[in-house]
């Protein structure tokens, strides 16, 4: 920007070396204690009994089944959530209808609701004390304490992820391109796939990556609805808890290290997608709406 211009000017507030150095030191030190140390301790513990113990835990049938449950949940929940996010963003940004603002708020609700509350709420829908529970039992359909319940609870906690990335971006992009495409005779699907999708692909991918990380790592909501049956309904985060409470610390951290690698991969993907203009750059910040934020970026 105008960094060159600024060079000849007097130093800005907080530029004195003493202030600068002590602030950087404070931030680095606190960050090291609060964020870096947990990251390090996970791997230190996981490998504290050597590579073989680590490999044994990972290869244990219970751990493998937990990995399978987590991947299966993500494979079902993430695509459905993505389809919902795209549909919601299309409806909200391309049309006017009464109650639109309320709908936007309702989509955001899962962000502010505790995962435990979400889990409890699902019990009162599909549990035996719930609305559909008795009917489901009569029909011999198992939702709670099985994969469907885990998937539903995961979909609740991640419902806003994709929609939240797409709505501000599609709002800023307007409707002109799509309207031009349809007026030239393109079908709705054709318009979406060849006009809208190329413009939103990075933001879409960004939402999908964050949604996936949350689905795979969800603990509270899933622990209420899964029933924690070892080797049956344990996802990886629940398996971590189970091993930890069994005093199998090394095993717990070995399982946790898989989730940690996932978190690190997610952050790297996030940074790369942000360079493509997704995420923070396209979201309306408190500093100004998305369109303006975009224009100020080179």
């Amino acid at each position, binding site marked *: 920007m105008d960094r060159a211009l600024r060079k000849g000017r007097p130093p800005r*507030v907080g530029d004195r070396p003493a202030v600068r150095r002590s602030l950087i030191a404070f931030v680095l030190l606190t960050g090291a204690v609060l964020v870096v140390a947990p990251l390090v301790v996970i791997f230190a513990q996981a490998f504290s009994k050597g590579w073989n113990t680590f490999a044994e835990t990972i290869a244990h049938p219970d751990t493998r089944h937990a990995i399978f449950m987590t991947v299966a949940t993500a494979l079902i929940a993430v695509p459905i959530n993505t389809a919902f996010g795209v549909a919601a963003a299309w409806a909200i940004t391309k049309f006017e209808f009464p109650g639109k603002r309320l709908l936007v*708020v309702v*989509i955001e609700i899962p962000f502010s609701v*505790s995962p435990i509350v979400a889990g409890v709420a699902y019990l009162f829908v599909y549990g035996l004390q719930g609305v559909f529970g008795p009917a489901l039992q009569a029909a011999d359909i198992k939702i709670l304490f099985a994969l469907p319940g885990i998937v539903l609870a995961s979909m609740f906690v991640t419902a806003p992820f994709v929609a939240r990335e797409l709505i501000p971006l599609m709002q800023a992009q307007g*409707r002109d391109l799509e309207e031009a495409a349809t007026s030239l005779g393109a079908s709705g699907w054709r318009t979406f796939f060849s006009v809208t999708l190329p413009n939103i692909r990075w933001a879409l991918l960004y939402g999908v990556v964050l949604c996936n990380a949350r689905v795979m790592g969800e603990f509270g909501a899933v622990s209420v609805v899964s029933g924690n049956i070892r080797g049956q309904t344990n996802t990886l985060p629940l398996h971590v808890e189970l091993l930890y409470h069994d005093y199998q610390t090394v095993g717990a951290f070995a399982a946790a290290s898989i989730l940690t690698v996932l978190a690190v991969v997610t952050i790297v993907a996030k*940074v790369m997608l942000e360079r493509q203009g997704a995420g923070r750059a396209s979201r309306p*910040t408190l500093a100004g709406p998305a369109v303006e934020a975009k224009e*100020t970026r080179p």
Partner: protein
Amino acid sequence: MRRRVLPGLTLSLGITLFYVGLIVALPLGALIFKAASLGPDDYWRIVSSGRAVASYRVTILCAAGATAFNLVFGLALAWVLVRYSFPGRRIIDAIIDLPFALPTAVAGIALTTLFAQNGWFGSWLAEAGIRVAYTPLGIMIAMAFTSLPFIVRTVQPVLEDLDPALEEAAQSLGGSDLAIFRKVILPLLVPALLAGVSLAFARSLGEFGAIIFIAGNQPFETEITALLAFIRLEEYDYQAAAAIASVMLIAAFVMLAITNLLQARALRYTGRS
């Protein structure tokens, strides 16, 4: 109103309403229905019981402590990231999001191991006579970890877009750095800080996974409300679980309203025209 030319309203709105209805509204409605079916007397008896009230106190006080810490640390972090350039700045900028990406259970066991009596930090602190794990201080640290990114990420963009001319004018009038920060810069950051504070506080109120490992979970002392709801469920006391969960839901709605209000206000006051 403009003429509607784009197709897909029925389909996209249909999918949206169906999904929101089935995944979000139905379970929350069922929870409210269950809690409401208790009747006012039973409901009040459960939510005002000594153990429940103690859990609200622990949760709210620890969330307030964690948010206060993040207010200072988050502001310093945003300041350092925006105003200074130093080696490793971009890595720190990226790693701040770790608490959002790391599963809460993993964060919970990692923090517990660090701060337990025999842990890397816990053993030092024990020599100084400070116990962290299995005390409210441990709950605060877990909450501070999981809500760390909120304040940084709301303040950062405002700080980036701050007009340098304001500071320069203050400097030319002879203001000291501290005075300019307090009287010129900080007031401009207040709306974003408030919005970040309400997001971080709301997140801390509902946090579960990261806390239960480090908290010790002693009723009346270190038991958070989310855990109490979970315990009632494990005791098959569904009515109590519904009542306590409904209190948390109401608190979440109040925080959502406050956050939306603060964000709308912040957008209005700092939005560039």
